């Protein structure tokens, strides 16, 4: 009996693992930064190289840090929604312009609209490495105390915002006066 059951049991176990594997995304990695203090940085601003943009700018507030570049297709895709969030969510969005061309980036913002309170210009990608960035677009949610609350890899879309961001923002804000939490109209 045991002799015949064993292969069937092994097959079933293997089957379960392989079936699960079909629905896992090996490209999405949990960021070890979530729950930890956001790495500090200070970079020249995209608009004005003499001005500095950095983690001090969003200290004390719930904010988004969006990693973007003009060469990044997903960034183009999420751009209209970022504009909408900037208009309606009340959460300030900071940009980390990653390994980009300054003129192209400025032209992009002028043509498509600028959802960012400010964009930092990371031409070498050093700050991006410190933040564990490996592919744009990536969006970090940063809490009031400077903790990374969430990281999303890939274009930020309404259903992702509602599912992953809004509950965390609501929790972070609690009873304190927080910016308007509702991301929808």
């Amino acid at each position, binding site marked *: 009996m045991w002799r015949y059951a064993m292969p069937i049991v092994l097959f079933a176990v293997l089957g379960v693992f392989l079936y699960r594997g079909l629905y896992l995304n*090996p*490209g999405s*990695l*949990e*960021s*070890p*930064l979530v729950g930890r203090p956001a*790495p500090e940085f200070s970079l020249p601003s995209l608009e004005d190289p003499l001005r500095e943009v950095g983690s001090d700018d969003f200290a004390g507030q719930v904010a988004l840090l969006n990693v973007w570049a003009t060469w990044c297709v997903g960034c183009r895709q999420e751009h209209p929604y970022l504009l909408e969030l900037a208009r309606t969510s009340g959460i300030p969005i900071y940009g980390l312009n990653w*390994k980009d061309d300054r003129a192209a980036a400025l032209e992009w913002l002028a043509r498509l609209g600028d959802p960012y309170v400010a964009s930092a210009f990371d031409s*070498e*990608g*050093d700050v*991006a*490495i*410190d*933040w*564990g*960035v*490996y*592919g744009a677009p990536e969006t970090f949610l940063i809490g009031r105390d400077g903790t990374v609350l969430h990281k999303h890899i890939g274009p930020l879309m309404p259903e992702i915002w509602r599912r992953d961001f809004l509950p965390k923002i609501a929790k972070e804000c609690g009873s304190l006066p927080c910016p308007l939490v509702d991301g929808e109209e």
Partner: protein
Amino acid sequence: MVRILVACLMLVLATPLAFAIEGELGFDDPAMNERYRSLLREIRCPKCLNTSIADSDALIAADLRREVHQKMAEGYTDKEIVDYLVSRYGEFVVYRPPFQPSTWALWGAPPVLLLIGVIVFARILRDRARQPLDEDPIS
């Protein structure tokens, strides 16, 4: 004809080498350079699943190579560099993750499976040895 085939084969075999990180960063000191190269082979490119940052053409792999080079030049040890990258990108970037609760199954499975195999094999051998030799196996 054979010569042409051999030449083609050599070309094909040489291609991966040509895509390696030649012409990029390195160290003048051969020992340091060797350390750098072997460290790059230990770190997995976060963007490309199954290539080390030594072998990947991805943008992020080039940046990580530069980061490793810079940190080595600043005198960081291999462990400090790997720990730094793990703290930013997670255990995913190391080909040899540390032995901890989340990796027990990973490290434990091969020896356990090998042990099961050995036991099964031993039992089969023992059963065979018990069979009388004069019995006709075909019947």
